[in-house]
C-alpha cells in the first residue's frame, strides 16, 4: 500500500519537476528570489543584533538559528504540499472529480500531488544555516538535537493539518490562495523568537495559531530551555489539530457539488 503511494508520489514529482524546469529562466529567477530573501533578512538580523547584542534575550547565533528553523519549516510544506496551492483551480474547474474516482485517497492526491523540487535547494540552504549557527551555540546536546527533530516532525504534522483544513475550506468556499498566504504570513511571525510579541498577540500566536509551537518550540528544545509540559503540549496540539482537520475534510467532501464539471 505504502509502496503504491510512494510510486504515485514519485511519478507526480517527476512530472512536476519537468513542468518547473520547462521554463529554466523562471525557475532560476524564482530560486534566486528565495535566496536573495534569505540573504537580505540575514543581513538585517546581523546589522540589528550587532548593535543590540541580542533580541528578546537571544544572541546573534540563536536568532539566526530561529530564523533558519523558520526557513526549514516554511519550506518543507511548500516542497511536499505544493499541490494545495493549485487546489482551487481543481475545484472551480471540476477537475477534482478525477481525484475522487481514482483508486487513491483524494486527500493524498490533493496534498502530495507533485513536490516542488525548486524548494529542495532552499531546504539545503536552511539546513546549512542551521548547522553553521548551531556550531556557534555552546551547550547543544544529542538529546537537544533529538528533541528538535521530534518537534520538527510534530510541526510538519501541524502544517499538514493546516493544509488539510485549507483544502477543506477550498471545497466549501473555493477560497484557498488567501488562506494559504495568511498561514504563510502567520508562520513568518516566527522568523524571530515569539518573545518579541506582547500579549495578546504572543498568546494568540503560541496557542491559537500555533506558530510558537511550530517554530519557537523546536528551537527552544535544542537550546535546552523548553519545559517538559510545553514539549508534551506540542504533541497534543499536533494530534488534536490533525484529527480535527481530517473531520473537517470529510465534512467538506460531503459538501462538494462538482459544480463546474
Amino acid at each position, binding site marked *: 500500500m505504502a509502496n503504491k503511494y510512494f510510486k504515485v508520489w514519485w511519478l507526480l514529482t517527476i512530472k512536476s519537476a519537468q513542468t518547473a524546469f520547462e521554463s529554466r529562466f*523562471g525557475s532560476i*529567477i*524564482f530560486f534566486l*528570489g528565495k535566496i536573495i530573501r534569505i540573504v537580505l533578512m540575514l543581513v538585517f538580523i546581523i546589522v540589528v543584533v550587532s548593535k543590540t547584542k541580542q533580541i528578546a534575550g537571544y544572541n546573534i547565533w540563536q536568532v539566526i538559528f530561529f530564523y533558519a528553523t523558520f526557513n526549514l519549516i516554511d519550506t518543507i510544506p511548500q516542497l511536499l504540499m505544493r499541490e494545495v496551492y493549485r487546489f482551487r483551480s481543481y475545484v472551480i474547474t471540476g477537475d477534482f472529480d478525477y481525484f475522487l474516482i481514482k483508486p487513491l485517497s483524494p486527500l493524498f492526491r490533493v496534498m502530495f500531488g507533485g513536490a516542488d523540487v525548486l524548494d529542495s535547494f532552499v531546504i539545503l540552504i536552511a539546513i546549512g544555516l542551521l548547522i553553521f549557527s548551531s556550531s556557534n551555540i555552546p551547550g547543544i546536546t544529542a538529546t537537544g538535537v533529538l528533541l528538535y527533530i521530534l518537534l520538527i516532525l510534530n510541526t510538519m504534522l501541524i502544517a499538514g493539518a493546516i493544509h488539510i483544513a485549507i483544502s477543506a475550506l477550498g471545497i466549501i468556499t473555493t477560497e484557498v490562495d488567501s488562506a494559504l498566504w495568511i498561514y504563510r504570513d502567520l508562520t513568518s*511571525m516566527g*522568523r524571530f523568537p515569539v518573545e518579541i510579541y506582547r500579549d495578546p498577540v504572543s498568546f494568540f500566536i503560541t496557542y491559537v495559531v500555533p506558530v510558537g509551537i511550530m517554530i519557537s518550540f523546536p528551537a527552544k528544545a535544542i537550546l535546552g530551555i523548553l519545559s517538559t509540559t510545553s514539549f508534551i503540549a506540542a504533541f497534543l496540539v499536533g494530534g488534536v489539530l490533525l484529527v480535527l482537520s481530517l473531520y473537517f475534510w470529510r465534512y467538506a467532501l460531503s459538501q462538494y457539488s462538482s459544480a463546474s464539471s
Partner: protein
Amino acid sequence: MKKYILVARNMTIEIFTYRLNFAMWRARVVLNLLTTYFLWSSLIPSGRQFFGYSSSMMLTYILGSYFVSSFVLSTRSFGMGQDIIQGDLSNFLIRPLNYFGYWFAKDIGDKLMNIIFTICEFTIIVLILKPPFFLQQDPSLIFFSITAIFFGILIYFLFNILLASIGFWSQEVWAPRFIFAVLINFLAGNLFPLDILPKPIFVVFQALPFSYLIYFPVKVYLGKLGQQSILLGLSISITWIFILLFLVNFVWRKGLRDYAAYGK
C-alpha cells in the same frame, strides 16, 4: 478624463465584489505590520536610542511606512503582463483609450480602497497598541512628504510597466515580479529605516530608486532630513522618473513591434 474616473470607480466596485479576497489581503498587510512593529518595540526600550532613533521615532517610521506603502505599493498594474502574454493587449490598442492611463486609473481605484482600509486599521491599531506616535506639525514637511509619495507612486507605476513589458518576449512575467517584490520589501525601507545600514551600503541605496518609494517620504515626514537633503531627494526622484519614462518609452515601442498577439 471621465472614462478614467469610471475605470477607477469600477476598480473599487470590483474590489467590493471580491470582498473576502480583499479582506484576506488586508489581514496579511496587518500581520506583516504587527511583526515589524513588535520586533522594533522589543528592540528599543522606551527612553533609549537605537541608530539615532528613539522608540517613538522608530515606531512612527514603521507605522508611517505601512501607511505610505498603501499609497505607493498598492497596485493592479501587474495585470498588464498578463494582457500581453494572453494577447488581450490587442483589445486596448484599437480603443480610444490610453493603455497606461487605463492601468493608472485602476491603480488609483485600488489605492483608494487600500487607503480607506489602512485608515480604519490604523485607527484600531493605535487604539489597541497605543504606540508612542510622533505627529509632524510642520506643514512644509507634510507638503514635501506628500510630494515624495506622489513621486514614489509614479516610480512604482513605471517599474510595473517595465516588468510587464517582459511579456513581449517571455511568458515568465511572474518570476521577475517575485524577485522585484523581494527587493522592494528590503530596499524600499518597509522593514527598517535604510539609514541603520552601514554607510557605504546606505549611500548606494540612496542612489537607487527603491528608497524613494517608502523610506524617503517617511523620513521627510519625521523631519529627520534638512531642507537640502529633501530637495536633493526630490531631485533624485524626478531624475529616476525621467530615466524610467525614457526606458518605458523605449521598451514599449520595441515590444509593440515584436508583439504578435499570441493567444488571440
